[in-house]
């Protein structure tokens, strides 16, 4: 059991490194990995689907209003192996999300880390995570 767990963590860490880039899953090139954006707001939807899980939030815009963002995550099986479940987040939760924004300017990105209402910060196991700069 212990072996298995450690193994998964290692696998997750590298699922990414995917030294064998031939095994890269979907493309993450559409995200700007040179910078990050931090959002704080209320979850409107947490969609546990393949090929990707999506997290939608109404983030505070700093002017008293909110702006809607959609963030892509990896797949349910990879997230599950990394300790996430379909119930990790629910609509109404107030969270802080760090994402690599979409290059094309649409309000969305790739989720890099998430702080839950209980203060716990979770990593979504992004492949090649070290390539995504956190600047925000």
């Amino acid at each position, binding site marked *: 059991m212990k072996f298995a767990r450690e193994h998964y963590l290692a696998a997750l860490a590298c699922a990414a490194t995917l030294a064998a880039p031939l095994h890269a899953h*979907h493309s993450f090139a559409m995200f700007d990995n040179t910078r990050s954006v931090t959002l704080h707001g209320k979850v409107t939807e947490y969609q546990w689907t393949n*090929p990707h899980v999506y997290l939608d939030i109404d983030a505070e815009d700093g002017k008293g209003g909110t702006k809607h963002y959609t963030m892509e995550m990896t797949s349910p099986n990879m997230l599950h192996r990394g300790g996430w479940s379909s119930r990790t987040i629910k609509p109404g939760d107030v969270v802080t999300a760090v994402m690599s924004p979409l290059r094309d300017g649409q309000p969305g990105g790739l989720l890099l880390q998430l702080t839950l209402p209980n203060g716990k910060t979770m990593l979504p196991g992004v492949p090649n995570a070290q390539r995504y700069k956190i600047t925000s």
Partner: protein
Amino acid sequence: MTTILPALLLGVGLAGLAAPALAQPDFSGTWERYPAPEETADPRYAPTPIPDPQLKPEHRAEWEAGQKILAERLREGQPAGDNYVHCIPDGMPAMMMGMFPMEVFQRAEQINITQEAFNQTRRIYMNQTLPNWDEVDPSFYGRSVGHWEGDTLVVETTGIKENVRFRWTPHSGSMKITERIRLLAPDILQDQISIDDAYLEKPWTYSYSFRRMQDYKLQEYICEDNREYVDPDGNTRLKIGK
């Protein structure tokens, strides 16, 4: 005495009957790629590197053009193939090194292998005759038949769709894949693959290794809401909102 002797004889008889079955190893269970990324493989169990296919000259140009695009994409961090982006599974032989763990279901008459990514399942019919490639409708996994040669499961597959390609390698409809699958150790499985095709000057051979997983349950993978698409310039984009 009189009761024990027949019992002993019966026991010997049963053991005799069971022996052929015991000679065949049981591959049932869940397996993951070996070695894991960044793990150094035990040389006894390491997979063999996959060489470039030795294509005949008339097919080499197409392959080389594809490899150029592939290399460019990998540099940009794009996926190697378009299949996954379009929610399409690997097919054979790529699914034997699919992205996630695989599970083997073994019965005397049929062996199924399921790859977690896209719930892909291939079915190997034991001790049946391999049909000619043009007797089956082309498909992602083709038609597979298997038989045991000692402790080795030999699987022959044909009928793979021409657009189901491994490493962007063109192949004819008559391509045949022969696999020799055996345990190298109780928890290490090896799949030696040999691809024969009229497009190749000689068979394309390599091997995969797998490690048994403990207590892992394969998860469902239905490509339910694919928001990624490839735009006309070949870039993968994301649809925001539904």
